[in-house]
Structure formats: C-alpha cells, structure tokens
C-alpha cells in the first residue's frame, strides 16, 4: 500500500466505525450541551438588560444544559463499553489528534483566555448573567474571576465524571479523580466564595507559592494578617504548606500528592484535558527546552520573592525595577503562560504545557522528587513488549517506554504521578510505588532480567 492510499484508508475509518459511533443518547447529550453554550453566548449580549429573575432562569438553563448534556454524552460513551483501556481513534480522531476541530477549539480556548485576562469588558454580559449565582454564593455581584471559577469547576466536575467512567477499571484513577473534583469544588470554589461572603480575604487554600506567585510576597502576607484570626490561619497554612508539607509529602509520595491530587491546574488537565493528553511532545529536544524554561521561571520567582522581602533596605532604583519585574511576571507567567497557553493549547500540545514548561511549583516538587523522594515508577522485570502506550499517554512527555524496555525504574523530575502509564500498559509492567530510597535507581540490576542466569 503506498502512502496515498494509506492516508485514504485513515480517512475512511473516521467515517466507518473505526472510532466511536455516536448513539442517539450521545447526540442528545451533545445537543443539550450545545444549547447550554448557546445560552451563555446569548448572555454575552443580552444579560445586562434583563431582570435578576430572568438571569437566574437562563443561567440555570445554560449550566443545566452544559452539565446535563456533558454528563449524558460522557457517561454514556464510556459506560456503554466494557471497563478497560480503549485506544480507538486516539491518533486519527479529528478532535483529539490535532485535526481541524482540535485547532478550532485551541483558537476558541485561547480567545476566551485573552478576553478574560485583558479584555474582561467584552465578557460583561456573561459576567452579569452570573450575578444571581454570585449573590447566592458570595453575597456580591459576579466578576470575571467568579465566572472563570464557575467554568473551571463545572469543567472539572463534568469531565471528571467522564474520566471516572473511562478509567473505572483502575481504582487508583477513581480515587484520584474524586479527590481532584472534591478539592476543586471545596477549596477552589465554595470555600473562597464563603470567605467573601463572611468579609474575609478571598483565598484559594489549594494553591501554594510559587504557583500562586504572590502568596509569600510580604504585601500579601501582611494583607492576610490584618484580617484577624482567619488571616493568621491563612498565613500559617501557606507558610507550613510551602516550607513543611511540600518537602515532607514529596519525600513520602513524590510530586503527585500535589500535581495530580490537589492542584487545580493538574485537576483541569486530568479531567477536562484528558482527551488531549497524548499530544505532548516526547522528543529529547522538548525535554531540554522544558528543563531550561521551568527552572528559569523558578529562578525568577524565587529571586523576586526574596528581593521583595529585602525591598525596604534596597536602593531607590531597585524598587522601581522590582515593581517592573513583578508586573512582567504577572503578565508573562501568571497570565499569558499559565492561563492562555496553559489551557488554550490543550488540543495542540497536550494538557500539561504549563505544568511541564512553566510551573515553578512543579519545578520545586520535581527537584525534590528527583533527588530526595521515596517515589518511583517501577518497571516489572523484563515484561515490557515495547508497545509504547505508556509514552503515548504520558502528558508530561516522558518517554516511559525507554525505561521500561531496559527494566529501569522511572525517576523523572517532571513525572506528576497521574498513573496513566500503569493503567494503559497491556502487560502489567509499570507501577507507581513508594519505597526505600536505597537502590531506587535500577534496583533490579543484578537479577536475571532478560531470562539469563544470574551467574553471568
């Protein structure tokens, strides 16, 4: 078969039942989902003019349609198949393999983030539409960040339910996804809203410095301390979270305790972004770029935070420079990288672009995981058949197979411990394990790995 006909045959099986054929219920689900989105879009232009009651009704219909339709589609799609890994259409599907649909979505996501960060005025109608919900939860009108939080939380909950259905053969994935969903809903949505309602600082307890880059800035901490007892608790929480919990938990469980169990960025990647996880670049070049980028961001934020603490004793010209540095960090890293690129590029570069190339928290956790942790992914003897599913599904772009083929443990700073490599392995070769640090690298060397006698 020549290249031309090979291409044609690929075309043909997106039409024939190669991928997934939509059932009536799934079409209905997608229809409901679309109607919900259309109502939100209509709200952009009309919501400012209508009464609060009308907005409540339309908001309910919109999110009801999105959540109900999304659940109907997502749950039916996976529950109608037997539990287990299905790779159908992964590399050929228009939506998930960088086809026209994937590109369109990337442009839409990116556009949404650009409006959200820099042109929130364009979203005014949408924000007004959310006023009734914001009044109910927070006791004040909505702003763009409340709207964003609502999108984010619904995304994690609906797609989290879909991910649980999809990976329901793996209890690790079920437990982990439930925790991600609960953390987002509680710590990153309802609790901050409650704080606002009680006239306390709006604080997201699940985001630590330096991911939430200003959390340990002197100004931020002083602000919290002025808020009384709750403020003291918040300061204690973040200081202990960064200085104690991070190294201790990473020592015992690896980076995953945060990146795959707590963090909202990881939560969105592993639920909403799951259909695109395989699009991460696995090349050596990407790994090199990743290390330069992520550690540069780390140096920037650590240096800047330290300078801010010494700011009072710094000369005048440094003060101005520091302010500029802070503004640029907020614009380039905090908004453009973490938000616009981080989520906007899901369909093109996989789901962990920010976590992999930019997040300074991931950088710190990665260094701890690499040099001082009991965590590793164990390779099971010589059972690897080189199918490559593990590398394909790795959202961090780790060539897992390279290690598995050689019977080596996988200890990489970037591994977020999502556990998908172990879930998709058809031969039971990979397992996420915490164990003694002695012999963590390559502990099976010396045992007859390839079926050869030990005497040799």
């Amino acid at each position, binding site marked *: 078969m020549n290249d031309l006909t090979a291409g044609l*045959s690929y075309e043909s099986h997106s039409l024939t039942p190669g991928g997934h054929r939509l059932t009536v219920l799934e079409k209905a689900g997608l229809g409901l989902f679309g109607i919900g989105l259309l109502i939100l879009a209509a709200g952009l232009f009309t919501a400012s003019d209508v009464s609060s009651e009308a907005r409540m009704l339309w908001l309910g219909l919109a999110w009801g349609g999105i959540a109900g339709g999304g659940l109907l589609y997502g749950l039916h799609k996976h529950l109608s198949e037997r539990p287990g890994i299905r790779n159908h259409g992964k590399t050929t599907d228009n939506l998930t393999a960088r086809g026209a649909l994937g590109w369109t979505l990337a442009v839409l996501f990116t556009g949404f983030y650009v409006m959200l960060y820099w042109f929130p005025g364009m979203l005014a109608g949408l924000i007004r539409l959310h006023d009734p919900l914001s009044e109910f939860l927070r006791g004040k009108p909505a702003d763009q960040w409340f709207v964003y939080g609502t999108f984010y939380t619904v995304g994690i909950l609906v797609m989290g339910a879909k991910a649980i259905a999809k990976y329901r053969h*793996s209890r690790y994935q079920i437990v982990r996804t439930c925790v991600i969903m609960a953390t987002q809903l509680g710590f990153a949505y309802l609790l901050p809203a409650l704080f606002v309602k009680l006239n306390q600082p709006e604080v997201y307890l699940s985001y630590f410095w330096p991911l939430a880059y200003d959390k340990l800035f002197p100004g931020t901490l002083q602000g919290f301390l002025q808020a009384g007892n709750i403020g003291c608790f918040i300061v204690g929480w973040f200081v202990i979270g960064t200085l104690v919990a991070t190294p201790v938990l990473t020592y015992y469980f690896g980076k995953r305790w945060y990146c795959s169990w707590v963090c909202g960025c990881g939560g969105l990647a592993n639920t909403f972004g799951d259909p695109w996880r395989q699009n991460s670049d696995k090349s050596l070049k990407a790994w090199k770029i990743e290390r330069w980028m992520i550690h540069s961001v780390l140096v920037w934020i650590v240096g800047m935070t330290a300078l801010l603490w010494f700011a009072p004793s710094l000369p005048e010209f440094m003060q101005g420079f520091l302010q500029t540095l802070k503004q640029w960090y907020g614009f380039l890293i905090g908004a453009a990288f973490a938000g616009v690129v981080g989520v906007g590029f899901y369909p093109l570069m996989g789901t962990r672009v920010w976590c992999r190339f930019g997040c300074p928290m991931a950088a710190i956790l990665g260094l701890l995981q690499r040099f001082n942790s009991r965590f590793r992914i164990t390779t099971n003897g010589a059972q690897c058949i080189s199918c490559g599913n593990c590398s394909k599904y790795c959202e961090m772009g780790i060539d897992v197979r390279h290690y598995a083929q050689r019977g080596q443990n996988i200890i990489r700073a970037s591994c977020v411990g999502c556990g998908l490599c172990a879930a998709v392995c058809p031969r*039971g070769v990979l397992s996420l394990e915490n164990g003694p640090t002695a*012999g963590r690298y390559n502990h099976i060397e010396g045992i007859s790995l390839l079926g*050869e006698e030990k005497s040799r």
Partner: protein
Amino acid sequence: MEKYAPTTKRAVIVGGGLIGVEVAEMLLTRGISVLFLVRENAFWGSVLPSDEARLVGREIVRHGIDMRYETELKEILPDERGRVRAMVTKTGEEIPCQMVFLTAGVSPNTGLAKASGIESDRGILVDRHFRTSTPHVWAGGDCAQHREVPPGRRPVEQVWYTGKIHGEHIAANICGEERPYLPGVWFNSAKFFDIEYQTYGIVLPEPKEGEESFYWEHPAGDKSLRVNFRTGSGEVLGVNVFGIRHRHVVWESWIASRTRVEDALVDLGAANFDPEFFRQYEPEIVAAFNSRYPERAVKLNTRKGLFSAAIAKLLGQSQLQTA
C-alpha cells in the same frame, strides 16, 4: 485489511491462539462481527490448563465474539471477483463472510537453510552458541531449534523476548566472546481483551507426574491464580496469573531458589504488582489454598509493595550481587 474493512460485515478467524485474539480485537474496533473457530474444545488448549482456557473463552464471548469450539475450516468460497464470499466448516456448514484469517501458529521457514545444506529439523538446528552446522552461519529467533534444549524451555522458542536474547548472544559470539545460551526462569505475558495474563516458570496444560496444581478463581470468573509445585517437597515450579499483576523478580527468585509453596504463599503480597488502591485477593487465595491443603496451611503475613520484608530481602540480595 484496512482497505477491505469497510465492506466487511463478518470475518472468520481460524485457530485459537494469541494472534487470533489480536486480530479479533482489531476487527471489533472496525465494527466487524467476528466468528472464531477453534479446533480444540478450549481456547489455546495447547498452552493453557482448561480452567484458564475457559476463563479466556468467556472473556472473548463477553466482547461479542461468536466462539465455535471443535470446529475446523474445510474450504473458503470465492465470489465472481475472487474475493471471499463464505467459508465451509468440516461439518458442512456454510458461513457467509468477507474475510478469513488463518492464525494456526508460527512455524520456522527452513527452506533457505535446507537448500543451503544447513542441518534442519523443525527449525534450523543450533548449538548453545547459536552456531548452525555450517561455519560462520548463525541462527536465532523463531527459526532456530536448540540441539540441546535448555531445561524448562522448548526446542523452538517463538517469543519476541527470546529472539532478542538470541540476537544479543549471536552478536557477542560473532565478535569472539564465548557466550553460551543459559536462559533463566521462563516467563511470558499476554492480554486477552481486558484480561492480562502473566506466567513465570513452567505450567503445563496438565500437571506432570509428581506435580500438584493449586488453582484459585475469583467468583466473577475474570481473575485467577494457579501455582504448580512438586508433590512432597512443595517447591514452586510455575505460576499463571490472570487479571492480577504479579512481580517478575519475586516469582523468578522463588522459582529459581526452589522456594516451598507455603513460603511463597505466606509472602504472596510481595508478588502483587497491581496499582495502589486495587483490591487485593491474597487473603482469599490463601484461604482457598488452606482448605485444599490443610496439611500445608499457612498464614498470610506480607503486605504488598516495596516496603514488604520479602522484597527488601530480594533487593538486598540483588544489591550484593551488583556490588
């Protein structure tokens, strides 16, 4: 295959083994209904004991495949364009289909070797260094047949990983190293639709004289464990696991060091390689063992994972060896 898939409604697979299952899975992803003909009365009966063969057979049927045991292909009928129209079984039943796959197994192609005067039997005969009867000609992989069969191995080894090891040995020997083939404990694995299978050591379809075979199956019928051991001494000879992942190094070490079945079962948790939070079945397995062999009854005491004492011991040994 991709070209003909869109016009195929039904495909027939002849021969119950690993390749047949892979073909069946591929066909299902293209929405083609599959008829599976197996000559024996159970799936892969030449390798699997009947309990496991039935377990795999059930899994295949669960995925909507039409299994026909003790059925053989007589002839394939073409249409006017020379494409498959139907097939006929030995009992004379005519089954309409558009594709037929023959997956009866692999046999060495010795044509070239025989024509060149290289000694061959079922495969090309090689010594322990993979030398054939003709100087400077070497053979390895699926086509080679060992003159001296290593213990616990078959004369012709048709698994990908043995081919890889053969190749490494041949390269070393060609380069002047004297590297005889001394394979260790046999292992293999496969996946039948959603059920993973691993085997370590030797488990034959029927236990040999002087061997005991202990079999546990989960009531849901999709997980099982079989341990074969020597009657009397109790040394473990081999294990089959379906639907549970086990640790290669642990079983290899138990089998190589002739560990007693009682000692292995006490530490069975050390062999568990399933991901975290997975249900563990060791208590049920040990309880089943104790009720079948009350004279060998044991108490399970090792937990799963790298913290277990049994694994620490193994890893300790391996580090000594490395050092």
